[in-house]
């Protein structure tokens, strides 16, 4: 995840998550002092990276401006073993953060909103029926009244 992010903050955030996972494993194994040293070391290193990140990016830009092209990135030995289709899939999976937002939208947010919109429609039918007329004035409001309305 960290390697495919397009901005340095996200990249460092995912890198931190990796370390946090390892620290939790250390705690789980009962290696409390190792975990403590790991936490302190990680905090120092990550703080330094976060502080250094803007100037590092500027150094990279200067370097690329000087040579007139992007810096080349050699593939890792493990990466060379994988076919390019898997490369692309992994890249997309990482870039989309495991499709978590899409899954949440499809499986949770959308049904949730749909249910309450249905409940809203039922309430509308109920109040319309009692009123014997359309009961909601809010259906006819302007989208951007601030553009047309004079101030009070």
């Amino acid at each position, binding site marked *: 995840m960290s390697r495919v992010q397009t901005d340095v903050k996200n990249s460092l955030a995912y890198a931190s998550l990796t370390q946090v996972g390892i620290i939790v494993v250390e705690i789980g194994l009962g290696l409390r002092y190792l975990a403590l040293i790991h936490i302190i070391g990680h905090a120092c290193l990550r703080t330094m990276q976060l502080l250094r990140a803007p100037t590092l990016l500027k150094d990279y830009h200067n370097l690329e401006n000087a040579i007139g092209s992007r810096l080349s990135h050699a593939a890792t030995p493990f990466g060379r073993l994988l076919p390019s289709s898997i490369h692309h899939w992994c890249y997309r999976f990482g870039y989309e953060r495991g499709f978590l937002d899409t899954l949440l939208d499809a499986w949770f947010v959308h049904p949730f909103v749909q249910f309450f919109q249905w*409940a809203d429609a039922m*309430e509308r039918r109920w*109040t319309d029926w*009692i009123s014997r007329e359309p*009961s909601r004035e*809010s259906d006819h*409001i302007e*989208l951007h009244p*601030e553009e047309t309305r004079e*101030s009070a």
Partner: protein
Amino acid sequence: MPELHFPWMEVAILVPLLGALVVRWIRNRETAHQATIWTCALAFALELGEWIDFSTLGKFEAHDHWDFFTTVFHSQTFVIDELSAPLLPLGALIYLVTILSTLRTKVGRMSLSWMLLSEAILLATFSCRASWVLVGLLILATIPPAIEMHKRGRCTRVYALHMAVFSALLLGGWTWFQLTQRPGEVALVAGALLTTAALLRSGVAPMHCWMTDLFEKATFGTAILFVTPLTGAYAAMRLVLPIAPDWALQSIAIVSLITAVYAAGMALAQQESRRFFCYLFLSNASLVLVGLELATPIGLTGALCVWLSVGISLTGFGITLRGIESRIGRISLADYHGLYEQMPMLAGFFLLTGMASIGFPATVGFVGMELLVEGVVDVYPLIGTAVVVAAALNGIAIMFVYFRVFTGKRRVSAVSLRIRWTERIAVLMLSFLVLGGGLLPQPGVTSRHHAAVELSKQRRLTLPQDDGNLPVDRAMELKPHN
């Protein structure tokens, strides 16, 4: 019964009553507005004085000095106790900040004399214990909004139908209770009727449609004034809590819990600001009801704290939305309005009061919400977590609306939309309470805890003991006051 040092309650009720009469005869709208502001300010000062006076007595309940009603009618109609002591200044404050935040150009939309009359009714309601007078006042309070809707040419059927059922249930329940109640008996039928009435007035689902209809058709100010003092919860505390058995109260708590989650979900699905506010309020009011009906000291303490915090924060939230609406018209939530730069103070206040309503740390709602969650989870370990779900959904809804109203592409208005000085006073008063109550919560929580313990004790004394009997002296004392 201990006596206050001044007839605070009766004078505080009399002031808005006289104010209503005076304002009715003032032709000049600006002068009438000013007179209303000063009347509300005086009523608030009197209620504040009453609360301070009562606090210095250190008793559970007290009545007015030179009590007019006791002298004339030989009945202690107006009594202050630990439950109502902070509610009275809160009610007066809600009226004061609402009229302060009303723009001069919008004064003509709401009747100031009816507003002052409603304030007098509210203050009288909060000064009453369970009695025919309380029942009458609860019914009387439903009339001014109906008159306003009728004057505005809006259909009142939804509101009138619900309030007619509420009045019938209240009258029926109280009459039944008066005719049938014997010491040591649980009032099942009367309790059921009164409970349904209180739930209807509180807007518990599925009996809540009158509230959304009120927000649609009445002026925003009137709707805020009618719902934010939580009169339904007060009716439940006075009329239901002393007579209903535990299982009945806990059933009400579950219904209220469902309403809290449902209303929070509905708030997220709304496309217009008034309806959004209505559901947000409904969710928070239901949470108060959940705690009140748990009938445990910790739950009651949380509910009483949240009652005050919801009253303060959501009144502030409501007047913010009303202030924006007064300037640009009804606010659609279907798109971004980008209003931050034109009204930064209202934006900040919107966020502050919104966060306070969901119990954000360092705001007035934080401790109350924590206590409420603890109280509910103690009684219902599994479904009690729904309180947290409701609070989380409310938080998401508030941020959603904040982004819709204040962020996005800036659309420049022809004239300044900045806050006026009277609104500034209202905002500062409420901000002071929101932050003051959050940073120094101990006095408020201690007072609410003491009230909760006393109310729990009274309830234990009122209801039949394990042997099925009620202490006779207590039963006679708690017999309804006519």
